[in-house]
């Protein structure tokens, strides 16, 4: 179990740094989404399933959708650039 936790924490660190360094905004949002998924698994391992459900639904689901919509609004997705 501890090995799994260390692997997940490593992924968490990689995601946190990569989301900052990524130049493509869409990639940054996707990395942030995977960060939330990993975080929800970690909440599950820490025995707080309430938080895990909320993190998966809000962090990985709704927040990412809102980020995508914002990117579309500011014309940063491919296909929405020239208007």
């Amino acid at each position, binding site marked *: 179990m501890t090995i799994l936790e260390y692997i997940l924490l490593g992924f968490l660190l990689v995601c946190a740094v990569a989301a900052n360094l990524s130049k493509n905004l869409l990639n940054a949002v996707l990395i942030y989404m995977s960060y939330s998924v990993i975080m929800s698994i970690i909440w599950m391992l820490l025995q707080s*399933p*309430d938080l*895990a459900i*909320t993190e998966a639904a*809000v962090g990985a*689901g*709704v927040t990412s*959708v*809102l980020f995508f*919509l914002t990117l579309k609004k500011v014309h940063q997705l491919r296909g929405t650039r020239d208007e």
Partner: protein
Amino acid sequence: MNKINSASHTLWGRLSAWVEGDPLPREKKAAAPAPSAPREKKPPVKKMRRFIAFYRVMAVVFCVVIIGVLMATVNALPLFGRADNPASNEVVQRYVESGLEETGAVNIVAGMILDYRAFDTFGESSVLFLAVTSVMILLLRDKNNTDREEDLRTARELIVENKSEDVILQRIAVILVPCILLYGIYVILNGHLSPGGGFSGGAIAGAGLILYASSFGMIRLHRFFSQKTFTAVTTSCLLVYACSKGYSFFTGANHLPTGIPLGTPGAILSSGLILPLDICVGLIVTCTMYGFYAMFTKGEI
């Protein structure tokens, strides 16, 4: 323009013009700018370079200092799950030992946030409500903040959207949306029995609504969910919550005599007010999540 000029003399007129986003009429003409001195022939390249190098170094230093402070703080925190932590005091003991018989909720977290600390949860719901209200103030489209050009563009986008239906997305949504909505309702209704509760279940159901709206368009969703429903549901849920919990707050931790018994722990009709409060919070969160989506895409619910 004439109206603005006549209104701009009073303070109220200026304020309303500012709120509605009209440019404030300039009464005093700004003095003509003094003729600028002739530009230097060479831009200060050396100075700029030095500034950029300084900026980079300072950014790194700043980051390292902040990371160091945070790490030192984390290091000073007590270890996770130790028995002599300041967090494990008599409050936690009371919750764990007598939470089940006092609230009737098997899920002790729900018992805490919707019974012992229900007023805090009321604050959280109000925060969500305020957030969606401010997003509506900023992004809601009505005749005051749209012009003809923008209306035309939205109509054009709507035509394109209706023509290019995504078949794969729609097929998958037909299968997934009922499951997601059912799961959200299950999580809301079982908030006092199993992990979850109003907030998480509402977020799941809201995500289902978002999937439906993004695959079939919002016009189909308007058949059962319009702005009127949105306003009615959110305000009435918040009012029910405020009344039922304000009662017990102002009468000194007396519960509202609703006639709902604590019941047997484990049955779905148990634990008094927690189930109705869960449903209220769930509805508020569902509406809020969908409202954010609708505001960000179309600017109307």
